[in-house]
Each structure stands twice: as C-alpha cells, then as structure tokens.
C-alpha cells in the first residue's frame, strides 16, 4: 500500500485566464481530505487532473501508487470511486440500468451493494433518471461510487442539493468507509461545516493557488480569532494577523495563536472563519 493515496508534485495547468500553478499536495492513505474553495477556485479542475481527465502542463500526479499518465492507471481506476458535481447519466436510464451499465466498467461491481444503498437512500431503482430530483440523482451517483469496493473516493461537491438528513447520513457513510485504514477520501465542498465534521486534512484553493493544506486539528489549533477595538486594530502591525473584519463597534482578526499579544482574548475559531479571513485578505491584497 502506498503511503499517500494521492501525491501531487508541482503541477501547473492553464486555460484562458485561469491558472493552477506549481501546486503540490498529498493525501495520506486512510485519511479524508476536504478541498475548499470558492466557485472557480480550481477544485473540479484539480479533480480532473488527478484522474487524468484533463492534461497537466507540467508536474506529476500519482494515485494509489500509480502514475496517473501510465497505462497501468486504467486498472488503478478500478479502485477509485468518483462522484462529479453534476450527475451525468442518461435521462432514459433507470437505477437498474445504471447497475448493469456500471458493472461493465468495474471488475468488482456489486449489484447487491448498489441496490441496498439505493434502498437506504430511498431512491427507487425503477424510476428513470430524469424523473429524479437533484438530490436523488446525487444519491444515486454516490451509491454508484460506493458499490465497487473502492480504496479511494473522489467526490466533487457531493453534498450540494442534499437535505441535512441525507448529508449527515453521507458523512456517516464516509467515516464508515475510512474505518479501513487502506481507504481514503478526497471531498470538495462549499459546506465547510460538513468538512469540519469528517476531514482529517483540509486543503484550501483560491484562484488556482493552494493557500493552505494541513491537518484540520492543527489548523484549528494554530489559528484563533481575536476580538478587539478599532483603535487596537490600528495599533497592530499588519503582518501580525492574517485577516481582519471590521464591524460597527468592534473588529475581529484571525491570527496565529502563538502570535496573539498579551491582554487579548482569543476565541475558538471554525474552519469557515479561517477560510473567509484568508479569502478576504487575498481579495484586499489584489
């Protein structure tokens, strides 16, 4: 088993004005990594690059120990389950048809597992795809990704369009999935609270740049939000904090916990706050 389920080294990719430059990250085996970023940050592009569905301009990517450009990567894909942000099966297919169809792609496809997941998600396997709601379509795609004994799941916005109950159930399934230490998950989402619940690692993409990639617990420990007055903010050196939010009566800054001056009270921060402060700081810097 490879130490890292995904290993990306210095990849670059550009099309039009969009550019991913010199991006490197690793997803250790047995872990869940959350990929966060605003619309157009490059999350879906990165997933396409990882799966060799898009060509890189430079750099190397290895997935489950296999170079994603090698011929052997096709058989490695048998161990990878993928869910894209837009479920893309043909409208006239029923769940049962998709079962037969996917069994032609995956060597370890389990119809029994697929149909039981559909039952668990309350998706009727005899209803045509176009008649399903967006959430139901997503559930069907997730069931398909979980039905072939994958070692790595790559999920692009799987929780979008799902109600909180199903989202919670999906998160449980993902945690259950990674109980086996050989299994890993890369999940992109806008819903940072979901990622905070389940992820071991967080990667934050902003305009094609990797702003941070670290263990979630380390991040939450490393950064703190400090409340202070406008005057106190003016007195703080600008390089001592990562981002600031000015309110009517008070201000908040995101700082590294180790840099907080004496006399200030630090508050527990959330992943969402860290991301928002960093994104705001980047926008203001431009």
């Amino acid at each position, binding site marked *: 088993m490879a130490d890292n389920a995904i290993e990306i080294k210095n990849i670059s990719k550009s*099309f039009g004005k969009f550019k991913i430059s010199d991006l490197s990250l690793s997803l250790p085996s047995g872990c869940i990594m959350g990929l966060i970023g605003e619309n157009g940050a490059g999350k879906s592009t990165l997933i*396409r690059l990882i*799966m*060799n*569905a*898009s*060509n890189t301009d430079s750099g190397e990517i290895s997935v489950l120990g296999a170079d994603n450009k090698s011929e052997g990567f*096709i*058989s*490695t*894909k*048998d161990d*990878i389950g*993928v869910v*894209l942000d*837009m479920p*893309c*099966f*043909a409208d*006239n*297919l029923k769940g049962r*048809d998709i079962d*037969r*169809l*996917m*069994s*032609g*792609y*995956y*060597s370890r496809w389990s119809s029994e597992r697929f149909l039981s997941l559909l039952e668990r998600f309350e998706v009727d396997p005899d209803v045509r795809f176009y008649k399903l709601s967006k959430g139901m379509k997503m559930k069907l795609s997730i069931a398909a990704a979980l039905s072939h004994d994958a070692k790595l799941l*790559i999920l692009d916005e799987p929780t979008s369009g799902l109600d909180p109950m199903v989202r919670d159930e999906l998160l449980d399934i993902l945690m259950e999935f990674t109980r086996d230490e050989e299994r890993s998950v890369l999940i992109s989402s806008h819903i940072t609270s979901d990622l905070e619940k389940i992820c071991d690692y967080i990667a934050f993409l902003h305009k094609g740049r990797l702003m941070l990639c670290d263990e979630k617990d380390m991040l939450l420990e490393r950064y703190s939000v400090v409340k202070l007055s406008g005057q106190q903010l003016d007195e703080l050196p600008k390089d001592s904090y990562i981002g600031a939010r000015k309110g009517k009566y008070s201000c908040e800054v995101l700082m590294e916990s180790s840099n907080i001056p004496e006399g200030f009270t630090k508050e527990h921060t959330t992943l969402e706050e860290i991301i928002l402060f960093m994104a705001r700081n980047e926008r203001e810097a431009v």
Partner: protein
Amino acid sequence: MNGSLRKNIREMRGVSIYIFVFMGLLSVLAVFSKSNSTLGIITIMGAVIPASSIERDNQRGFDTFERMLPVSPEQVVSSKYLLTLFTTLMIFVCSVLGHIAGVLICKGADGRFALPKPDEVSIADSDFLIKICFISLITIAVAGLLIVIFYRFKSSTFIRMIPAAVCLTIGIGCGLMMNDDEDSFIGPLSEISTVVLITAFVVCTVIFAASYVLSLKFYNKYKD
C-alpha cells in the same frame, strides 16, 4: 461487452428503434413509388446516431466522467465506431426487410390501389441491393468523418452545424444519385456498377479506419 459499448447501445436503443422502423417503412414506400431516391436519408439517419451519442455525452458531462472510469481510450472510441457499424447494419437489415415487405404487398395487391404490378417488382432486386450496400458504405464513411470532427472540436454551436450540414448535403446527394428517373438531375449515376461498389467499399473502409485512428489521437489530446 465493455461498459462504453453497453452504455451506447442501451442509451440509443429507444431512439434507434423508431429510426429502424422508419427506415423499414421508407423502403416499403420506395417499392411502391418504384424509386430508390428516398434511401439517401439512410446516410443522414445512420450517421446522426453515433454523432449524437458523442454530442449527448459531451453535453451532460458523461465524457468527463467516463474518463475517470476504468476504461481505456481505445474502448471508449471504438465503442462509438462499433455503434456506427451496428446502427448501419440495422438500418441495412430494416431497409431490406422493408423492401421485401413492399414487394410482398405489391404481389398481394396484384395491381390494385395504383401499386406496381407483381411483374414490375422483385425481392431479389439486385439494383436495390447494390444501391443499399453502396449507401451503407457512404453512411459509414460520413459517420467516421463526423466522429472525428466531434472528438477534435467538441460541441460548440458552430461545430455542431458543420456535421449537420455535411450529413444533410451527402444525404441529399445520395438521394439524387439513387434517383431512377431518366430525366433526373444526376441521371448517369443512377446505375451503380459492381466496380463502383467495390471502389466505394475500399475508399469508405480506409476513411473509416483512418477516422478511428485520428479520433483516438484527438480523444487523448483534446481532453478539456
């Protein structure tokens, strides 16, 4: 059967059945009117099925998803070509069955309802068979060209118009070539000799094979 081929056949099954029935009926009418000019539409129908399969995959993002599945580029691309051969074969069979049905109806009607007399029609009409073979070969070549265009340029509105125009032009051209009317616009081509048929077989097979090689190259090169 690999997943790609299974998917293409399953998806196109619904639409294709209507097309096959339509082609059968068209062949019946061709016998009634004693003119094979309507068979030119085979080219349009036969070439549109595989091209529209690629177009649909592209529109709903299945082509990107399929690139992430354990299937080789050769399997994905060859499945479109096999779909072309399969649909052309089915259209050929339906046209022949339609022709047989048309001849049997004429024989049964025995000159009534303004239908051709029994001695004017024949099941073993070599002229019809040669023409249907010829037009099937043209269909395969046109489909090959359309598939290459789609794999190279994907599906912008402009690009979608080019295959449609190519398909329509060749379809109408084939229709005119099939016209048995002595006063027709392209009279000399109304009779297709065996030599022409063999030449068409060689040329169309080369175009189809070259198109496969190019499509495979474009599939790997133009992913975005």
